[in-house]
């Protein structure tokens, strides 16, 4: 049975519009103009227990709104949502006791308290049994390498340290479902890898269902077996990363480094498109059904003195950008 059922979810926000200029401001005092923003416009998907799903889309697409509805924070205008058979906003208190939530741009730790005191407070708030709490806490401290941070007040932590602590805080009550809203935002490369590693282990070893919204498509590539793409409040695509690629474009890229810069200016092929030329490096896009990679490489190496070359899939950014374009 699906752990999460979302059907035709609609959420409309009414936003007061500000008219520009002094006259506009005065007019706004007398009569407000409202604009309706359809943040979610018929979103549907099902999720099984143990899945790790990437939820991506441009800013304002409705990602966070979906997460907030699933977390029981926002009440939608229409549609059906069930998580473990419960309607989140109707059964909010029972529901939230069984989920973990991390909003990357906000912290749930108490700013002035040492990390460990925030953890202890969450134990009481979630009424975790002392033995369960100790086990969960010690495990999380080890997995996320938090031991040196525990006595530091939260305001003195770096962003990466804080995010690791926030992840632990969201999991102390051992939820079976975790919502991560941009957990890697603003983190450096090392911290991102730590967060990804941890989320992967959590999903594989404990079977925790994870919904991950992000702008960092490396997160998706590293973690998600299934990707939901959303734009303008609608689901554009739902499937594996490979399916997403196949659906949007079969294109692959051949990057060539030549010995001589002047030579680079001449590289080209009837069956490929030059997408980038930078010094001694040229990038060609091609369709493997029109010309095989082997054939293309053979042609290029025959004509030019090549120092290095490699074939790659276009980055997911390019794919998603094309998906959005196709919609517009």
């Amino acid at each position, binding site marked *: 049975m699906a752990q999460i059922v979302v059907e035709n979810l609609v959420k409309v*926000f009414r*936003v007061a519009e500000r008219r520009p200029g002094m006259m506009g401001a005065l007019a706004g005092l007398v009569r407000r103009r409202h604009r309706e923003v359809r943040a979610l416009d018929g979103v549907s998907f099902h999720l099984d227990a143990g899945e790790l799903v990437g939820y991506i889309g441009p*800013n*304002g697409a409705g990602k*966070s*709104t979906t997460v*907030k509805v699933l*977390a*029981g*924070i*926002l*009440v939608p205008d229409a549609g059906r949502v069930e998580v473990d058979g419960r309607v989140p906003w109707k059964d*909010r*208190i*029972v529901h*939230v*006791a069984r*989920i973990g*939530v991390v*909003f990357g*741009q*906000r*912290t*749930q730790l*108490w700013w*002035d*308290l040492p990390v460990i*005191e925030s953890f202890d*407070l969450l134990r*009481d*708030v*979630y*009424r975790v049994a002392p033995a369960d709490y100790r086990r969960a806490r010690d495990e999380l401290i080890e997995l996320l390498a938090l031991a040196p941070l525990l006595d530091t007040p939260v305001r003195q932590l770096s962003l990466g340290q804080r995010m690791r602590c926030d992840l632990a805080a969201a999991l102390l009550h051992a939820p079976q479902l975790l919502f991560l809203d941009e957990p890697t935002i603003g983190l450096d490369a090392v911290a991102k890898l730590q967060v990804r590693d941890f989320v992967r282990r959590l999903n594989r070893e404990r079977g925790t269902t994870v919904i991950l919204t992000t702008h960092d498509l490396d997160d998706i590539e590293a973690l998600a077996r299934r990707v939901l793409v959303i734009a303008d409040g609608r689901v554009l695509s739902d499937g594996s990363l490979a399916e997403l690629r196949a659906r949007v474009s079969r294109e692959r890229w051949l990057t060539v480094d030549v010995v001589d810069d002047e030579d680079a200016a001449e590289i080209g092929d009837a069956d490929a498109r030059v997408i980038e030329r930078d010094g001694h490096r040229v990038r060609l896009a091609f369709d493997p059904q029109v010309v095989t990679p082997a054939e293309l490489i053979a042609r290029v190496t025959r004509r030019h003195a090549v120092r290095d070359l490699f074939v790659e899939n276009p980055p997911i950014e390019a794919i998603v950008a094309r998906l959005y374009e196709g919609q517009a």
Partner: protein
Amino acid sequence: MTGYAAVVAARFRMLLQYRGAALGGLATQTFFGLVRIMILDGFYRASATPPSLGFPQAVGYVWLGQATLALFPWNTDSEIRDQVRKGTVVYELCRPLDLYGLWYARAIAWRSAPTLLRMIPMFAFAAAVLPALGLGDWGLAPPAGVGAGIAWVAATVGALFLSCALTTLAHVGVLATLGADGVPALMATIASLLGGMVIPLPLFPDWAQGLLAALPFSGALDLPARLYVGHIAAADAVWVLAQQLSWTAILVVLGRWLLARQTRRLVVQGG
């Protein structure tokens, strides 16, 4: 209940650490206490008909108000304003606790911890230091009697619950206006004036007395202070507690209802 109790305890512990704020508050409240007493002194000297509240009682009233200023519902918690502005309030909604209960619990800690920190040095100053300096007329006299003292303690506890209901209602207003400054500003003016923080309520005209006593604000400072100085008989403390508790009940019901309405149409700032 343990969740709410844990929130109260944790915040209480944290707020007790703010020694700097306590010292600052103490200095300011002492200064304003003296200024208000000097003004009252002027009025009492110039007054043709002495008011029902004698000058020593008015002085006691002012010092009690200054000592329990942190208990008085005249301001809102800056952390809650920040939570609403920045949207961190969503985390509060992710807790298996009722948001009203959580905010009320926070208010209890936020009102009581600084009051306890400041009250004793304030009393020491007003009741011991001022008389020692030869300013006994401006000092705080002991309660009107043992009964008055006990009645004041009970009514101050009642004032805490009432004040937190008013404070939480204001926090609901902060949420409704998305953290704008209007609600806190309105609250500061209305509560201070109608609660006796500007002028002791017995000094208002007679026609206003009934109304002022009926409004909830009098329960936060005026009624307990009048019990202390003996302007209300200790035997009438039951009525004071009844006023406080019935307003607390009404304000809690109102606050919960408004908050439930608000959370149904919540817009989270910043996506």
